[in-house]
């Protein structure tokens, strides 16, 4: 069977890949593009380990067929750190010990980024709703919530007052 050629933008860079039409975006990102930051947890949209931002919206890449990425803009955890170092969320997760085994961490970081992109000043309840689609079996979530709130505060401080 012929494979589908997909042209898209991944983490700001133009990208092309070949995929099967019934392959998920998760599998294409990992197995074809080589981005291992998206993880397969449940593969049914419950755990959020495969979270990616697709055309500005947080999605489970396991629930997207790879050919749907044609002309799309995709953001994964690999694109979060900038030339000057880690993203404030990544720093806050390290500082706040918001991870233990780490497999859920890229998903939480991407979900946290999706939240702060649209709401730079969330309260704790908003953070908890924003990560309701991400499961962590180690931390008990509290340190993750605090770290996202810390990162938000740091980013507001760093941003010029508008």
């Amino acid at each position: 069977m012929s494979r589908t050629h997909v042209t898209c933008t991944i983490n700001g860079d133009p990208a092309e890949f070949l995929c099967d039409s019934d392959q998920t975006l998760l599998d294409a990102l990992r197995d074809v593009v080589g981005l291992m930051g998206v993880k397969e947890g449940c593969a049914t949209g419950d755990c959020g380990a495969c979270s990616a931002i697709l055309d500005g919206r947080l999605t489970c890449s396991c629930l997207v067929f790879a050919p749907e990425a044609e002309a799309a803009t995709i953001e994964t955890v690999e694109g979060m750190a900038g030339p000057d170092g880690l993203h404030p969320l990544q720093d806050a997760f390290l500082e706040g010990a918001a991870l233990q085994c780490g497999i859920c961490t890229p998903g939480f970081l991407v979900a946290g980024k999706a939240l702060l992109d649209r709401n730079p000043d969330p309260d704790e309840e908003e953070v908890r709703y924003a990560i309701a689609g991400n499961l962590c079996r180690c931390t008990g979530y509290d340190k993750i919530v605090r770290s996202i709130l810390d990162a938000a505060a740091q980013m507001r401080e760093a941003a010029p007052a508008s």
Partner: protein
Amino acid sequence: MTGTGKGVPAGVALCSETRVPATLRAVLRGFDSAFVLLSGRGATSFGCAMRYAAPTSIEEAVSVLAGDVHAQVYAGATDFIPQLRMGRPEPGVAVDLKRIDRLTGLRREGDSWVIGAATPSARLGEEEDLVAELPGLVEAAALIGSDQIQSRASLGGNLCNASPAADSVPAMVVNNGRAVIAGPAGMRTIPVASVVTGPGSTSLAADEFLVEFVFDRPPPRTADAYLRFIPRTEMDIAVVGAGARLTLDEAGRCREVSVALGAVAPTVVMVPAAAGILVGHPLTDEALKRVAAEASAVCNPIDDKRGTKAYRRQVAGVLAVRALRLAADRAARTGS
């Protein structure tokens, strides 16, 4: 977002007998994919020659469906992909409807709201005027899954997946929603309440699909509400869902009342007696007690891990009353 009238989703009926069994196909394709299927986890693909089509117009989608009896339309795929993982046979061609502008839009058109069948749920909550006019519909759609799911899940997919517990359906029904359906004979419009015929089955033909939903904009002193009961705060399936919509007169008495319940019968059920009890009267405790009894009476629930029949009946009455109170509070606030 399509189905047959024969009690099974279209793709299932069309694939199961006429095609090579999935495990045999996997073996033919080599050990790796056989392992993938036998272990129930698709490492790369689901092991079948499914094609992908992304029509950009309704006409094109109709012709794709007409040209392949093994075609299956989908919207957000938040139910479709997990069903494939669970062993649902792959369709010959998966037809992604999200590239058709009319299916992913949201607009106010005169006295109506028109919502594309594949519009992501998150989009509804971003439309401030829609939230103000149909808050119950928006809150029902917003209860479907996490933010990740909200980015993809749609009213059309929620309806045509035909789960008895679908959250958006009671809210669409109390708002007298109409479903616009495209097929080889053109477009037709039917009430949302006529789409689902039972768990997993719809009245749509295999070559038809949903285009959009139409809702009347509410007249003065009118509001809707949707409440869902689940044992936790998020990310679960309804034990009971209750949608309500009412119009008050200037004295605060009910002029029109509509109540619909989800997850308590094979399809959404209305509580027609609510109008008889409430129209012409204010929402008194006594009247609402009678509405609760009627709501419990129309249920035909099942026992499952989320709740027993008796529990669902009782919660249905409680939730119907709470939804009515919430809708009435909102209607009173909308003023004249």
